[in-house]
């Protein structure tokens, strides 16, 4: 029963982060949306750990080693579910497919040229550069964009590597065009 309570508690991770997010989105209005979710995920770990202590760790008769494994298990499940919530929110914030779907939905029907007039490559690039600047991932110096913090750059390297393993290389798309244009 204790184990079941612990599972149930961990399964509520997205709900906990969502509740924190509802409040935080209204408090930290000036922060980028993604940053707010990351803060909520980190802050949410504290009440989750406290609740886990109350429903499981405080009552169990498990050995010290079993407790360590149970703690690691809980941490991994929490982190994976928090990461999943981040991506769901990120889809609502940045996904091109969701934006296109929204534009067609609100207009009832649209031609391709009408979609492009409402949301085009120029808008898309502009909103991304704006977000990258606000997240301090890039900076502007003498009218040129430069990397600032490197966390997203390293994530991008991992994703490019992962894509190559799956046979979905960046090479045929934007990155390839960028590389060709700048002979990188």
């Amino acid at each position, binding site marked *: 029963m204790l184990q079941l309570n612990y599972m149930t508690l961990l399964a509520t991770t997205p709900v906990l982060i969502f509740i924190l997010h509802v409040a935080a989105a209204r408090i930290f209005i000036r922060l980028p949306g993604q940053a707010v979710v990351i803060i909520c995920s980190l802050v949410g770990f504290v009440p989750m750990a406290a609740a886990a202590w109350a429903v499981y760790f405080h009552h169990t008769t498990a050995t010290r080693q079993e407790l360590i494994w149970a703690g690691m298990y809980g941490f991994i499940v929490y982190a994976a579910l928090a*990461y999943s919530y981040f991506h769901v929110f990120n889809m609502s914030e940045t996904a091109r497919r969701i934006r296109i779907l929204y534009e067609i939905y609100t207009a009832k029907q649209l031609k391709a040229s009408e979609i492009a007039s409402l949301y085009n490559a120029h808008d898309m690039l502009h909103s991304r550069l704006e977000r990258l600047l606000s997240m301090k991932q890039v900076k502007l110096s003498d009218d040129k964009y430069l990397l600032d913090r490197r966390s997203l750059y390293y994530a991008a*390297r991992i994703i490019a590597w992962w894509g190559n393993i799956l046979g979905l290389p960046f090479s045929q798309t934007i990155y390839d065009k960028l590389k060709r244009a700048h002979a990188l």
Partner: protein
Amino acid sequence: MFLLFIILPLLFIIGYVGLERLVVVPSVLSFTMAGWLSVYLFHFALASAYILSYPAIEAVSPSLAIVLMLGASNSQGIAHKDLLPLFDDETVLEPRIKDLMEAGLVTASDNYFTVTPRGMTLVQCFILLRRVLGLPIGKG
């Protein structure tokens, strides 16, 4: 992907536990029901993280392409005017419309795109999420 990583493992666990109870298969994995639930929750959490990361590779995130490009330019940087021609509608917009059609979220008729009932459900979920969070619709 959802079928492969979420539904099939669940069906496997249900099937295995069922056959084990009926003594059709030998009890190799001696898990309790709570044990099986913990196995599935662990799998579900990791599979969700994997599935939700996948579009960044499949659809080539322009943000990731930008930072990769800036990283490769070392300290020289890239001017806005040099980035702009590389992000055209053909590369970043049209494939996404095609994806929506292939996923059955949008249909095309007489050169007009309309959202399917499935697409409506999805977009309404995102509209609701943004409303509850008190945020405007995402810029994409």
